[in-house]
């Protein structure tokens, strides 16, 4: 269960639908539990689960006609840690996080997926290539384009927030 939050986040990035994401997480665990090819070390477990999830999702897409649905999703809000800081800075940091999340959410599917895998989940290029079943070179170029798009969306907002904090 230690990767369930990561899997749920990735499922949301793939499906953009809370109900479908929950179904996908369950299907992933069902497939994993019945698989005879479980990795021997825990360090490979997360990547293996992500591969299972992506394959399950692609399989699902092949069998359905309707496009993904869009719903309001409940975000995790850190509740401690920053609480003892300057309330104004805490507020602005929260705003910044919210804006980053919205920007990631608004990326096209393939870009959103690769940013989640690299910058949120911390997979290496090779691990991402395994999950996406593509060459590592494709990971690099797609990640570059995705970050370029993200930077364009975020830079003016981040600069505004830094000015207000500074």
């Amino acid at each position, binding site marked *: *269960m230690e990767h369930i*939050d990561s899997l*749920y986040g990735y499922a949301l*990035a793939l499906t953009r639908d809370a109900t479908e994401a929950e179904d996908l997480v369950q299907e992933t665990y069902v497939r994993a539990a019945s698989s005879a090819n479980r990795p021997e070390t825990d360090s490979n477990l997360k990547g293996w689960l992500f591969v299972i999830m992506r394959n399950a999702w692609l399989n699902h897409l092949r069998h359905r006609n309707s496009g993904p649905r869009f719903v309001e999703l409940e975000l995790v809000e850190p509740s401690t840690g920053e609480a003892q800081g300057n309330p104004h800075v805490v507020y602005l940091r929260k705003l910044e996080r919210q804006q980053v999340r919205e920007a990631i959410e608004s990326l096209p599917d393939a870009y959103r997926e690769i940013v989640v895998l690299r910058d949120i989940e911390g997979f*290496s290029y090779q691990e991402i290539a395994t999950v996406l079943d593509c060459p590592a070179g494709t990971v690099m170029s797609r990640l570059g384009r995705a*970050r370029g798009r993200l930077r364009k969306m975020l*830079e003016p907002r981040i600069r505004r927030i830094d000015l207000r904090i500074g």
Partner: protein
Amino acid sequence: MSKCDDIRGRLTLYLDDELQGMERAAVEVHLSECESCAAIFERELNFLNIVRESGQLYAAPPELRAKVQQILRPRRSSRMSWMVAAAAGLLVLLLPVVMWRVVKQPNQPENGPACSFALMAAETHLRHVGGQLPLEVESTSPQHISEWFVNKVNFSVKLPNYQESSGQEKLYELEGARLVNFKTDYAAYVAYQMKERPISLVITSASGVEPTGGEVIAAGGLKFHYNAIDGLKVLTWSDRGLTYALVSDLEERGQQSCIVCHQGTKDQSFIEPLKPH
């Protein structure tokens, strides 16, 4: 291609930790010598930090956790669960006695790394302190927290109320608890505060978890492993099918760390042997 163009082309790889050895060193040397490349690096690093610090975007809802737990649960025998629960019940009843009746014995140095549970506990502590793992229940009542864990973990959690039952001076305070994932099941996470500094207790019933490495403190028939992980002090021990990890950033080390929480005890005959002479 100029040296600067070459290095700037590799900055992303460097920031993504995809360069090793000489390639990595070459980037670092150039950045230390070239102000304009260093400025580009700083800007890129700042951008990536902002993206990465947005953290885990979502948490799996409790209903989903419960469903997945059901998917994974059939592999555990019901008889084993009952035995673990019984052992856990006994342990939590005995825990205060064990912790209070520490008998000074020679510490045994032990080589080798800390176990995966100790590493998980340290990471969990850091994530909680960093705001990524909010508490699911907030209370200063050991009884309330203990009841909250009923039917959420497959062992019994009964947090002892050391301070009131022993007349100990109130040095630390319970904050709350939550579930955390470890291996294929939930572990219990309990948060305390001591002098405004966080202390974490993590409990698991996962099989095959054996505290290892660090300094070994023998006490009350148990072996406590004291590890320093990422600047944190992590004390792990196993008893009757459960494994515990206590994480803090307190300055005291080894068995001195036991004294920190128990220094208010009236039982000075217990605490004296632990003090440095």
